[in-house]
């Protein structure tokens, strides 16, 4: 194991990540890639307080995450990388040709977004961002929790928010 899960989740570190994925997958570390958080000590403290002491949290920008990726990949513990939006994950994927799969864990309701799954709401621009990411060869799936189905992008985009 090493860093194998690349998740887009606008809630960043929260219950599904720490408990839902963290416990069954035995996650040893999280990598939170977010420019606002990496520039704010108190935002980092906020997220650290939500994580059990045995789990490390690393905060990165896209640039620093790409630079440190070999180090994360070499970590013997299972790890999960998080971004809060599609654009950040796409920017990271553009720097990491070895990134093959991205999971949408949660993009929630906001003005202008259309429901696609219970936990995925997207604007037209966000749908186009996901399609562009998939066109580069990255497999894009939606899966909120490990016991849930991994839903292919085409099924996400044709969804009506009830699944």
């Amino acid at each position, binding site marked *: 194991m090493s860093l194998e899960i690349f998740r887009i989740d606008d809630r960043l570190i*929260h*219950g599904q*990540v*720490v*408990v839902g994925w963290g416990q069954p997958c035995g996650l040893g570390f999280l990598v939170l890639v977010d420019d606002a958080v990496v520039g704010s000590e108190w935002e980092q403290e906020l997220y650290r307080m*939500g994580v059990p002491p045995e789990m490390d949290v690393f905060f990165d920008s896209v640039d620093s995450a790409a630079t440190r990726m070999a180090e994360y990949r070499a970590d013997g513990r299972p790890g999960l990388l998080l971004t809060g939006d599609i654009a950040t994950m796409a920017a990271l994927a553009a720097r990491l040709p070895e990134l093959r799969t991205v999971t949408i864990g949660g993009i*929630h*309701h906001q003005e202008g977004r259309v429901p696609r799954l*219970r936990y995925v*709401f997207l604007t037209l621009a966000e749908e186009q961002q996901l399609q562009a990411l998939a066109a580069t060869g990255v497999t894009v799936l939606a899966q909120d929790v490990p016991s849930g189905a991994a839903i292919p992008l085409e099924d996400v985009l044709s969804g009506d928010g009830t699944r």
Partner: protein
Amino acid sequence: MTTNSTVRAVVAGHGTFAVGIISAVDQITGLGDQFVAVSNSGLAPAAIEEQVRNALASSGATVVFTDLPAGSCTMAVRRMTKLGAGITLVTGVTLPTLLAFALGADPAEAVARGKESLLLIESPRVP
């Protein structure tokens, strides 16, 4: 702003957790109207924070109970407390904790009661 003076706290959590635990308090004590429920279902972080803020503002309450220390409701309230909103947060709430609060305990006493009520009871195995 007019507030609901009966309400003493907001309960926020995943799914229908808040509605459920308030329902249990009401069934046991008849004091469920001391609480307002907030769910994070389908909500982005900013919307969760807005829901909690609105619940606090409309009720006049300054205490928030949440279900999970790492949960998105807890993170939203922690963000508010960092900004000095004068809020008391109790996270990891259980039914005994909420019952104690409903029956008049302050948040610290309610937490102590909740901790006392968390027990492991194992019966001996029959060979």
